[in-house]
């Protein structure tokens, strides 16, 4: 017990024995902590916060009216609708895939499970440009399949289906990667209990599994959606960048930027950045509120 606690409050200061502060052995010296925090915050400001601020300040550089007016252009509107449509198809498809893959991997034991997980992660180690190239080769007029589909009126390359497929490719692992660890941790005791009590497989999934994974599913969907709306490389390759037809929001940003339409480019960018910020906020709230129901790496 430190000696100074026993001293009466009225004791003159000079009567206190020199106080030796115990050195905390499991942390760094104060000067080191302060220096590290200052350095890291400076770097993060330069890398993260200033670019974000730049997006909004450039968008509003000619006033709010000019920014809003740039979105009124029919090409811009078409790009926004196309991006929404792409996310609306690609994200639910990948969510369905994620649930199916997680169900298979977490609730069953089979050979080659590790290999299957590696295959699911494959899109993370393939450049989006290469992903776009793969799809272009498969569905383009140069391949037998592509030629057949074009002959029957199904255009994939330089058309909306190609954009959706490319988006699905790059966002493919997001939901599955989020759900697999959560479902593995939950095991299958609860589902087995429901089945024993006579529930059908579908009912077990709906009333037992789904409530258990809903927040993790939402988390995965948020990440998937953010990437889907912002995907650039893969979509740039397969879309053919046909104005008013296959231009998504990120491609529209590139086009406006290259034409020196700064306000238009940054307004579109600000719109996407705002969506990203909403996503980030929702994701952070999930981490704070439902940490116990998310994958272990999000529990702070």
């Amino acid at each position, binding site marked *: 017990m430190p000696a100074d606690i026993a001293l009466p409050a009225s004791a003159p200061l000079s009567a206190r024995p020199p106080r030796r502060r115990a050195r905390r052995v*499991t942390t760094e010296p104060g000067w080191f902590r302060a220096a*590290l*925090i200052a*350095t*890291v915050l400076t770097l*993060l400001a*330069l*890398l*993260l*916060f*200033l*670019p*974000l601020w*730049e*997006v909004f300040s*450039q968008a509003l550089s000619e006033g709010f009216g000019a920014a809003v007016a740039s979105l009124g252009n029919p090409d811009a509107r078409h790009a926004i609708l196309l991006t929404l449509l792409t996310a609306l198809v690609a994200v639910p498809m990948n969510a*369905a*895939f994620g649930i*199916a*893959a997680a169900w*298979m991997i977490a*609730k069953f034991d*089979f*050979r080659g499970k590790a290999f299957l997980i590696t*295959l*699911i992660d*494959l899109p*993370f*180690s*393939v*450049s*989006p*440009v*290469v992903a776009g*190239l*793969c799809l272009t*080769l498969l569905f383009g007029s140069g391949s037998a399949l592509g030629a057949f589909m074009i002959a029957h009126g199904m255009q994939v390359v330089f058309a909306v289906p190609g954009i959706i497929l490319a988006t*699905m*490719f790059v966002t493919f692992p997001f939901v599955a990667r989020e759900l697999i660890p959560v479902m593995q941790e939950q095991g299958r005791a609860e*589902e087995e209990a429901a089945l024993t009590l006579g529930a059908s*497989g579908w009912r*077990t999934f709906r009333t037992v599994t789904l409530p258990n994974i809903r927040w993790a599913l939402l988390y995965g969907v948020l990440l998937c959606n953010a990437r889907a*709306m*912002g995907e*650039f*490389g893969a979509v*740039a*390759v397969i879309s053919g960048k046909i104005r008013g037809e296959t231009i998504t929001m990120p*491609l529209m*940003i590139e086009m406006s930027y290259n034409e020196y339409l700064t306000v238009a480019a*940054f307004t579109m*960018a600000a719109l*996407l*950045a705002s969506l*990203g910020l909403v996503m980030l906020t929702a*994701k*952070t709230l999930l981490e704070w509120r439902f940490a116990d129901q998310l994958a*272990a*790496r999000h529990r*702070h």
Partner: protein
Amino acid sequence: MRGLSLRSPSPMPGFGLAAGITFTLLSLVVLIPIAALIARGADIGLAHFLATVGTERVLSALWLSFRLAFLAALFNLVLGLAVAWMLARYDFPGRRLIDAAVDLPFALPTAVAGIALTTLYAPNGLVGHVFQGFGVRIAYTELGIWLALVFVSLPFVVRTVQPVIEEIEREVEEASATLGAHRLRTFVRVILPMLTPALLTGFALGLARAVGEYGSVIFIAGNLPYKTEIAPLLIVIRLEEFDYEGAICIALAMLAISFLMLLVINLVQVLSRRRYGNA
């Protein structure tokens, strides 16, 4: 049973349906398209492949992409460890905001990041003109490409290492201090080995992301052939010239080098696990 059948018996329903959906979508979206690339590559033949990849322009693009991605991932190894350590161990105002902001590169589309970084770091930009005063150009140089790659691969190391730091038991550090090790020695000899597998995982993820990055780089790169032209951009240029063979060759070279690198990192990881136990 397990030895005989492909999967062990289970009372759970829905294996067939789940496997059906999984394999159908995985094949349609990912595996068959990649197989198409490899099949078309196989038609080209090794001699032609080597001749195409061996040109100076392709080689310098590949070298630039992999070198800068490696340097960016290396920088993020250090910065990521510092950020993760700070978020896990120190208390400072705005800690939760910083924690959330680390994922900004995941939330911000690459094209958005690209034009924002370019205007910011261009010679007349807010930060760029300060560096210009010291005679350092960032945008339209290798430094700019590196910066964009640091941006996109920033969250990976933080997010893999942070939970591991949070799980370290203080007793271990106390034991080390009691035995007379000073803080730096404790960090290097006790803590760092525990973090190595997570650090390597984050490094590999960041590297893979940086190697393939296109959207944020093309704005800031300047895109001069032989100088600031990254490999993914060269693939796009070849495609725009309808030189499909050229694009396929560069893509296959990128895939091959990427997988080789990830293989080496996995190997290092296995070795470090063997040395330090399964931390």
